[in-house]
């Protein structure tokens, strides 16, 4: 009887241990949200020890000048959107076509070499892409730019494009390869050309994998910080008029000033994180809605 009771106790103990470990994810999310939000929302309520700030001015403000007590992240939201959008417009078609090449058109030995190479490139830390952007892309942009510096929206878009390229390509290649062979054979047997088969049969069939790849790429582009800092220029305000203007993104704002910020400025960095958090959750919800809809079709 006692052996049995000990065994039951042991089973319960381990059950509890496993459950606790699994609940740690939930606890972490709650802790992160409480910590970031409690700091980040404080400046917008009265009785804040470092003075209050109008939440409307914060979200729509076009200048971030801590020395003048001005904290607007409106332009950073727009810049983040522009940079991500630009990277998607350039990167997704390029990645899609490259993936089609690797999966369907490349000679076998070439494809065999390219796929692991692309996967390896997806694992390169973003800082190294940033170094490349700093030393190659920014100077190249400067040579065609009307502005005296190569740090610009264009440089940011290019570096993000390069960075998300391998991520999307390797995901799309996998999903195209997963399309049943019979689809392709059926299409070819009906007299469709190879190109028609790829674009009318294979890609639609691989749609959900392609979307997953794009979502991963978007996630990497929005969250990217360190590589962007090196080529963005990080001005104190203003929406870019041309792609050659300097930009500051939500992510870079946090890292740039976290090292020395204090009091209200420090709280405002947490406020920036709150905006970034909501921004990303919003985009994730939209993307997963699109993905679900695409799955239904």
């Amino acid at each position, binding site marked *: 009887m006692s052996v049995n009771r000990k065994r039951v106790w042991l089973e319960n103990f381990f059950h509890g241990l496993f459950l606790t470990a699994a609940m740690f*994810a939930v606890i*972490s*999310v709650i*802790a992160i949200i409480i910590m970031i939000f409690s700091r980040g929302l404080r400046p917008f309520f009265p009785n804040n020890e470092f003075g209050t700030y109008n939440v409307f001015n914060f979200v729509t403000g076009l200048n971030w000048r801590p020395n003048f007590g001005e904290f607007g992240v409106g332009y950073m939201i727009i810049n983040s959107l522009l940079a991500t959008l630009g990277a998607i417009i350039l990167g997704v078609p390029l990645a899609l076509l*490259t993936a089609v090449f690797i999966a369907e058109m490349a000679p076998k030995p070439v494809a065999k070499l390219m796929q692991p190479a692309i*996967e390896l490139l997806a694992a390169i*830390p973003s800082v190294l892409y940033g170094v490349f952007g700093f030393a190659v892309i920014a100077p190249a942009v400067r040579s065609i730019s009307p502005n005296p510096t190569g740090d610009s929206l264009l440089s940011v878009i290019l570096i993000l494009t390069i960075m998300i*390229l391998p991520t999307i390509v390797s995901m799309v290649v996998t999903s195209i390869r997963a399309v049943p062979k019979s689809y392709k054979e059926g299409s070819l047997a009906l007299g469709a050309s190879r190109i028609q088969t790829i674009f009318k049969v294979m890609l639609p069939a691989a749609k959900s994998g392609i979307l997953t790849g794009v979502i991963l790429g978007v996630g990497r582009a929005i969250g*990217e910080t360190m590589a962007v800092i090196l080529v963005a220029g990080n001005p104190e305000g203003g929406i870019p008029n041309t792609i050659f203007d300097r930009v500051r993104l939500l992510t870079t704002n946090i890292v740039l000033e976290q090292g020395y910020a204090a009091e209200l400025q420090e709280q405002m960095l947490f406020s920036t994180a709150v905006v970034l958090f909501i921004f990303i959750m919003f985009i994730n919800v939209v993307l997963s809605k699109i993905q679900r809809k695409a799955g239904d079709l």
Partner: protein
Amino acid sequence: MINQKVKDSLVTSIIWLAALVAVSILIAVVAFIFSNGWSLLSRDFLMNHYEDSIRFVNFQSTQTYKLPFALEENSIFSEDLGMVLEQTEKGYHVSYIDDYSPVKAAVDNAGELFPVKVGYLIEEVNGQVINNQTIGQEVLARLSAEDNITIKVRMPGGGVFPMVVSTLILVVVTLLFAAPLGILAAIYLVEYAKQGPVVKTIRFATEILTGIPSVVYGLFGALMFVGVLGLGVSILSGALTMMILLLPVMMRTTEEALKTVPMSFREASYGLGANKIQTIYKVVLPSAMPGIMVGIILSIGRIVGESAALIFTIGTFAKLPVNPVNGNLSIFQTGATLTLRAFIEVKEFGNVEMACAIGIVILVIVFTLNTASRFFTRKFSKGNF
């Protein structure tokens, strides 16, 4: 029909072009890193400290030595010490040391063994300054004193040894937290949980964790671990931050691995009279091990490559994370990882060469991990079942 053919060949050429562009850009990135960093790379780069350091060491000459090879120009040989010094514009460098030379048994002022090595710069002998103006004969005369000789040596820096050590310690400490946590959590989800609100909440939480950008983890870590828990800017704070960041990856890969273990394995184990814990520990986990290894390897890659989550939790100082009081390595001290240092080199000093040299080291690590995970995946997919 002709129209279709023209269209097809046009699209085909566009695809070839796109692939060519994409591949050449990516090759350019890797080629850039290698071509810029290659010249800096050497054994010294990996083994030297970042900054020069200076020590005073003592030794005593007891016999005379012979040089086994011809002396080069600009070099002098001390018969009493069995040591060749080469004169450069910086001063006198040690370029050769006899196997039985007394400088190999030199002790520092604290009385600890501190052997002089090739590459060190000798700046003082018995309190008298030596620089590149000093004549060779004079240096030899000073080095051949009868009694105890004290010399001031400068160990050249310019290396990334502290960052290599910090990165290694960070990887080990992070995995000590993250791996058990992720594996235990995955065991719960696969072996215990029934569909319901608890599982839904956990899944939702991991999804949110996946979406949070690393800079927000960094902000959280700086507030929670550095500030509230009082761990300071240290390896431990960085490891705890990385633990949360890695949780979703560890959980998902382990879950996948556990799910591929056939139900019949568990049934057979139960049939033999084993209980649930024994089944998990002795049957399920060993079978899922290669898959779990893939998760751990992927996590190591993430730790090595991470920067935004670490910059304000682990710090950016290019020094070993040692306790200043007793000189031991400590996880409560600050130290930069390789990737962080590459960032700082470019951001603060515009030193692209150094960043690229560090980049090569990182690329080699990433490449090795990638190959290892491929190996485990292949082993896993062949499987023992």
